[in-house]
Every structure is written in C-alpha cells, then in structure tokens.
C-alpha cells in the first residue's frame, strides 16, 4: 500500500506492506537512520519518535497507523542550522556515550519541555522511565534535560 506520513513537517510517501512497522518505514523506506531500533518488544524505548507531539514506541506502531499524523524524529530536532536546546544540553552535560538511546531520550525530553518548560527532576525521571540507557546512566541525562530547560530560550534566540 502507499503510505504518506508527515515527517518533520514534510509529507513523505513510500510503498510498503501493511505490516511495516513505523520504525522500519522511517529507517528503510525513507532512509532516515536517526531513529534507532533495539528490543523490538516495546521495552527499550530506543525507537521513540513523536507522533502528534507525543512520545511513541515506533516498533509497536504500524506505519499505516501513522498516516495523516505528524511524526517528528531526531533529524527534525535541529532547526535552521541550530541544534535544539535538548541537543545542546546532551552535549554540555555529557548526556550520551554510545548514543544508542539518545534519539529517543532527546525526543521525549523535547515533548516534556513543550508541555512543561520547567520540570522537576522527578518529572524528568517519569518521562524517560520507558526508555533504557545502558551506558551513560540516567543522572547525566536528567542533567541534560535540566540544562535544556534552563537555557532553552537563549539557545533558540
């Protein structure tokens, strides 16, 4: 079937089987490898993308189910050559080592800050609680999100 999804603001169309999962549609049909893919069982959160602004595990959603919706991936965080404050925060606070969990973590952080610009550490913990980091550890990730909350305006300006 032909599937059209708005990805990072642009309608993208590709031919795919109905059983194609959103994560594979993004990676294989559209060639956007920024979205990672780990456990395949909706547990690790490496595949998190935003669907209509909400974090979703894209290994457990059919691409066909995303038709007509807005998907945002890590490739869509940078705007006009400027890194998103969340990306800056992960750099400043060493929020990543191998980077495997990072796209999903950053998108969840973006969604959190969009609805709650000044979250507490506990709110950040809850927000990322469906995602696993196996190397950096969560402390620096929380610090990175804090950094983005505190510096968001200067960076976007």
């Amino acid at each position, binding site marked *: 079937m032909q599937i059209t999804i708005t990805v990072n603001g642009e309608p993208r169309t590709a031919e795919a089987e109905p059983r194609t999962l959103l994560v594979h549609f993004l990676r294989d049909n559209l060639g956007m490898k920024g979205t990672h893919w780990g456990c*395949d069982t909706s547990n690790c959160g490496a595949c998190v993308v935003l669907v209509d602004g909400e974090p*979703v*595990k894209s290994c*457990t959603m059919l691409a066909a189910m995303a038709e007509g919706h807005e998907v945002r991936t890590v490739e869509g965080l940078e705007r006009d050559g400027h890194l998103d404050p969340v990306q800056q925060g992960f750099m400043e606070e060493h929020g990543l080592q191998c980077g495997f969990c990072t796209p999903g973590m950053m998108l969840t952080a973006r969604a959190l800050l969009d609805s709650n610009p000044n979250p507490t550490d506990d709110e950040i913990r*809850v927000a990322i609680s469906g995602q696993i980091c196996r190397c950096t550890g969560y402390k620096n990730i929380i610090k990175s999100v804090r950094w983005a909350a505190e510096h968001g305006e200067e960076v976007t300006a």
Partner: protein
Amino acid sequence: MQVPAPFDYARASSVDEAIALLERLGPEARLVAGGHSLLPMMKLRLATPEHLIDINPLESELNYIREEGGLVRIGALTRHRDVLASEVLARHYPIVREAEELIADPPVRNRGTVGGALCQADPSEDLSAVFAALGAVTVIRGSGGERVVTMEDFHEGPYETAVGDAEMLVEVRVPIREHGGSAYEKVKRRTGDWATAASGVALWLDGANVGAAGIALSAVNPTGIRSTRAEQALIGRPPSEEAFAEAAALAAEDCNPATDQRGPADYKRHLAQELTHRALRRAAERALAS
C-alpha cells in the same frame, strides 16, 4: 527483525463501519486499537489475523470521559494517558490514577487504550481489577444493538471475553456512589513491568458500617478476579484493622497464583494478602474523609 505475518489493513471511519467490516470479514479479522498487545503477539505469531481493522480513526467517537446521570462513561478508545490525567476519574475514584501511574510507561500509555486493555483480558492487566472493584459495567455493540455486561461476566477466561466475533466494546460505565473510597496496590519487579501481584479495592460506607465493597486482584488468578468472600467479610461491619485482616486473608486464600519468572506462588499469595490489607486501609481512610 520481528515483523507480523502479512495481513490486509482497513481503517474504520465509524463504529458501525468497524462492526460491518468485522461481520463481512469473519473471524479472521481483528480490531487494532493501541496495538500494544496485539502487535507484539503478531510479531511472535501468537496471533495471525488475516485482516486488521484499525479503529484509531474513531478518536472523536470513542475517546471520552464523561460524567453524566450518576455515572462516569469512558469510551473504548480512551488512552491510558487520558485516564491517568482525568480529574473527573481522580476525584471520584482515586484507585484509577493510582493504578494508571503503575501501568507500563509513558510512551506505552500514549497508545494503549481502555478497550484494548479490557479486551486483551491478560490475567495481569490492571484496569480490569480497577473496574471490577468499582462495580463497573461494559457496553458491547454489534449490528443488532448494544448490550450491557458486568465486569465479572465480561471476563470469560484468560484472553477471553464476552465480546463476540462481530462485536466491539464501546464503553465502560462506572457508577458514582457516595461515601466511598478506593485504592490500588501493586508490586512489580521494575518500572514498566506487569504486576507480580496487585489488589484493587473500593468501599462504600452506610452510616458507620461498610455497606458495599469491591475487591479485585490482578496477576494471581487465571480468571475470575473478584474476591467475593473477602467482600462479604466486610459488609455490615465498621471498617477496622480486624475486618481488613480477615478480608485480606480470605482474598489470599481464594486466589490461585502460578509460579513463574515473577516469583513463586506462595510469595504471590502473600502479596495478595498484604496488598489487599494496605489497599483496604487507604480506601477506608478515603471513605471516612468523603
């Protein structure tokens, strides 16, 4: 790479159309809501439907939480995140938010629906225990109209419900009753995990005594989640530690847990008792304060 076996995909644009499609396509057709139970089962070939009918386009028809006529009505496509956020549900039934905070994780809650949770009828599912404790009923629709089924009759067995092949669950109705309190207690191995054991409790006072009670356990029974003997042990007595201990012991006695990777059966039975006791204490405090 785990991918479902091939199937045909159709989107429903109304409840009536979804039911008509189920009727036309027959028993090899399945509805998909959040997909967070069905798609993992399809990846593992535990489910191999030939046709998937996507009901996500029915958000405007089936995603709602409405208080009216002494009831709170919850549409089948209401997502876990909406249930968690609902002030109406939190005000009338604190058990709902307590349970939702412990269901899966935020991205899963953004997709998973009330209808999918109930229709999956996983013995470790949490909302079935919540709604059973609250005395809720389900509304099932087919081409011949709607029928109302209690939570007890809804659950026919593990992964089996009263919903027929060409029917769908459209709504859950929770009665609003005065002088009530409710609470949920769950033990799980880590954030995002299913329950090792859980207990949902609701109490309604009639003067100084317990007038009605709902106790429903999760993850410790293959089927049949209400603890009727435990409920009966509370009725007509003042809410007291002694009564709670007796009811909790009956709930544990009547449950039937299985030993698995989440723990041995006797540990789960112990949890059933302790969690029921704690939930009763908190529900009673809330009922007395109401």
